[in-house]
């Protein structure tokens, strides 16, 4: 109905007031049937034109007909196609390329990990900005203002939890992205600098996640000097600012300079047809665009649903610098660092070397500077230099660079080794390895920990201990001799007592000879109970400690999971 000729006329300058003027002049003909038809036609045309103008203003140039064609999956109507112009002329859309190589858009190839990294980073920026309205970055006010966000601000807990969840997912997705790019060989030339920028982004991500875990001024804040303001500025300004700049550079190189890497098997296929088909271009609009919108809709729903119904950010007690909890809290993505400080693998080997061979490397190796600073920096340098080392290795053997797995067995093996290494040292970094505290302390720590201990894996609830989980209402006042509760029970409280008793008995050989346990629950204040676990044993030698006591307080309302 709306022909191209007319459309051009509407662009040539015929504006709405003119249309209305024409319409008014036609009102004189209403008496004849012909005139009525003409008025109806003109009215329809005027309204259509106005709507078309409005849609064009909103869609950066598309008319109604083209928007409809776009949604129906029809080819573009207007020529030259506005569908492509919009990707080069409008600010927000010009970030996206007009076309992609067909084989690079396969979900199974990239798993959209880069896309989701950006998605979660945006969620971080939005939720983080909202929280900045309430958070106060001073050691005295930080904890309370965080409590205020959770307990007094409408939607506050949702935002707090969404920030926490998407932070964890961001670290996870960024890690997977790194693994994907490494294993598919996508980091090789010409994308070497893209990889380097990516590693810098990984470091920024870990830095942001760590500074963020400190800001609520919970017990984990004891790792930092009491200057919260600088941590806050790093977390909210410097790290995300640098991140934005680097993301821009990273994304520019991916989308404009080299494109997403093709699947290696297709890129290096001996079959010319396969190679050509892999490089065929597909339009970004509308299919790929709709796919991304769908991903966003699904991810947003999953995030909001998780934050509302499933996962709440753990809340530990406020930091007390005079009182280091055991074990000190540390986020899961840095456990490998603490694992290195504990190190049960290399250090014993070096000690053996010193004692048997006489070469003393242990003294140097076993220092905090080496394990906590120099070694991580070396790792970072190794990661940053990986594509260049890889190219040098190929050059050394006189081989041409190949991304195929079968041509880089050593590289893949090293990658898998690094992955295992991270997993192993993360496990070593968890508090249950090695059990270094005396048995009575360890048992108390298991059932009545000083504080809720963050889980060693992302997004699992913190462990506040069985006594806190049972809570105020489930702890009847009294003194309980655990010896009388040896058998497991269906009820929660007697079963807790028997569990502790079993642990005490198991530890008999480890130092708790004739171990006896008592759990004392006292009414301490209005709605407050005091719970004490006392363990006594026969010491190996006179003068050694023969008892240990641990106390926690539980309020009626303090709902621990």
């Amino acid at each position, binding site marked *: 109905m709306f022909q191209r000729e007319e459309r051009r006329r509407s662009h040539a300058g015929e504006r709405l007031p003119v249309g209305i003027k024409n319409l008014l002049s036609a009102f004189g003909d209403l008496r004849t049937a012909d005139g009525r038809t003409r008025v109806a036609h003109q009215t329809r045309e005027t309204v259509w034109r106005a709507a078309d103008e409005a849609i064009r203003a909103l869609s950066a140039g598309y008319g109604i007909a083209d928007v409809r064609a776009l949604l129906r999956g029809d080819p573009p109507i207007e020529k030259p196609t506005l569908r492509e112009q919009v990707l080069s002329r409008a600010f927000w859309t010009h970030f996206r390329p007009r076309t992609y190589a067909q084989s690079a858009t396969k979900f199974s190839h990239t798993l959209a990990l880069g896309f989701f990294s950006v998605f979660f980073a945006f969620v971080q920026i939005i939720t983080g900005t909202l929280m900045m309205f309430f958070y106060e970055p001073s050691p005295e006010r930080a904890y309370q203002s965080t409590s205020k966000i959770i307990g007094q601000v409408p939607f506050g807990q949702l935002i707090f939890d969404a920030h926490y969840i998407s932070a964890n997912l961001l670290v996870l997705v960024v890690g997977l992205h790194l693994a994907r790019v490494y294993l598919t060989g996508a980091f090789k030339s010409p994308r070497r600098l893209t990889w380097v920028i990516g590693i810098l982004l990984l470091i920024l991500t870990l830095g942001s996640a760590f500074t963020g875990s400190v800001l609520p001024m919970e017990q984990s804040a004891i790792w930092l000097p009491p200057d919260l303001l600088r941590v806050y500025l790093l977390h909210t300004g410097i790290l995300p600012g640098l991140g934005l700049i680097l993301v821009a550079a990273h994304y520019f190189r991916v989308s404009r300079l080299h494109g997403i890497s093709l699947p290696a098997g297709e890129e290096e296929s001996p079959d010319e047809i396969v190679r050509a088909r892999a490089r065929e271009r597909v339009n970004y609009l509308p299919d790929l665009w709709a796919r991304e919108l769908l991903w966003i809709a699904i991810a947003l*729903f999953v995030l909001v649903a998780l934050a509302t119904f499933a996962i709440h950010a753990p809340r530990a007690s406020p930091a007390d610098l005079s009182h280091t909890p055991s074990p000190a809290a540390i986020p899961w993505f840095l456990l490998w660092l603490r694992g290195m400080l504990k190190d049960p693998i290399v250090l014993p080997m070096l000690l053996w070397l010193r004692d048997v061979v006489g070469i003393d490397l242990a003294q140097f190796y076993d220092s905090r500077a080496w394990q906590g600073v120099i070694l991580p920096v070396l790792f970072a340098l190794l990661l940053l230099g990986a594509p260049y080392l890889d190219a040098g290795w190929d050059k050394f053997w006189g081989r041409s660079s190949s991304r195929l797995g079968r041509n880089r067995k050593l590289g893949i093996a090293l990658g898998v080794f690094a992955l295992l290494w991270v997993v192993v040292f993360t496990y070593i970094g968890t508090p249950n390895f090695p059990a270094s505290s005396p048995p009575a302390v360890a048992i108390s720590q298991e059932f009545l920990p000083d504080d809720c201990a963050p889980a060693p894996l992302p997004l699992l609830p913190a462990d506040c201990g069985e006594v806190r989980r049972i809570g105020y209402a489930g702890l009847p006042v009294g003194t309980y001799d655990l010896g009388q509760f040896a058998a497991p029970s269906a009820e929660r409280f007697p079963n807790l007592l028997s569990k502790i008793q079993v642990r005490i008995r198991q530890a008999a050989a480890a130092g708790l000879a004739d171990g006896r346990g008592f759990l004392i629950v006292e009414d301490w204040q209005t709605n407050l109970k005091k719970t004490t676990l006392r363990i006594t044993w026969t010491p190996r030698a006179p003068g050694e400690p023969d008892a240990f006591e641990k106390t926690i307080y539980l309020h009626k309302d303090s709902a621990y999971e």
Partner: protein
Amino acid sequence: MSTQRRILVGLIFTLLTCLTLAVVALNDLGRDLNLAPPDERTAMELRARALEGRTIETGADLYSRYCSNCHGRRGEGVAPVAPALNRKDLFDGRRANQVRWTGSLESFLKSAIVAGRPIQSRPDLYSARMPTWGSEFGGPLRADHVSALIAFVLNWQDQAREINAWTLAPLPARTPGAGTTPGAPLTGPARVCQGLAAPYAGKKSPFKFDDKTILAQGKQIYDDKCTACHGAAGKGDGPAAAALNPKPANLTDKNLMQSLPVDCQFFVIAEGVKGTGMPPWKALGDDALWKVLIYTRSWSGVP
């Protein structure tokens, strides 16, 4: 999947997100929007109460570490050292009136904890002077710790008892002399031992100084009663030490311990030192004091 279907499924998910947000809005704002019964607690209120409850737990823990030595484990006071806290006249305003406090009860407690008492209000009844606990005055407690402590103390309100010790007796006229002048320079064994007399002068330990059992028992008492000020290793650097002036003695100092005879140290532990944070401990009984004394002297090795 075709583009139309993607848009459809995306719309469904967007709708689900909106529904979830509506659930959150009901949880957080149900009562404000007149969508929930007025007597039912909203999820947000439950969260706020949970956090308040945890604040009281934190306060209870802080109280047991910093305050219970002098004010009693359950706020009942330690007769010659410091007054009770779970007392009615604190909560009904009589005590605040007495010291002409015009602010809220909470601010009264805050000022007492953070700034301490520059001058003891009842030196005739209590030997210890309330030190400055707030970090802004050199103490160990941050502002949020102080609020947690206050939340814990205020939670005694319903169980507070009627105690008459300080409401009835008029304040005595202040007499100049040792013990009432705040911060008197009472350092050094020579000054501390001035008042040494019977029954303390020449007193001897009923236990041997190298008995391992006695040392272990002494450590237990020391860890319970003395670490807050003197520190776990006896260096005078316990968490409460920062708030005290004069500072708690460094019990590992060989010179100090050599110039402090055993009977004088026993006298100091039993009777306390006026004008300092050291309270009298004689209520524990002679045996307990000797055990602690033997344990503390094991650090310097001076018998």
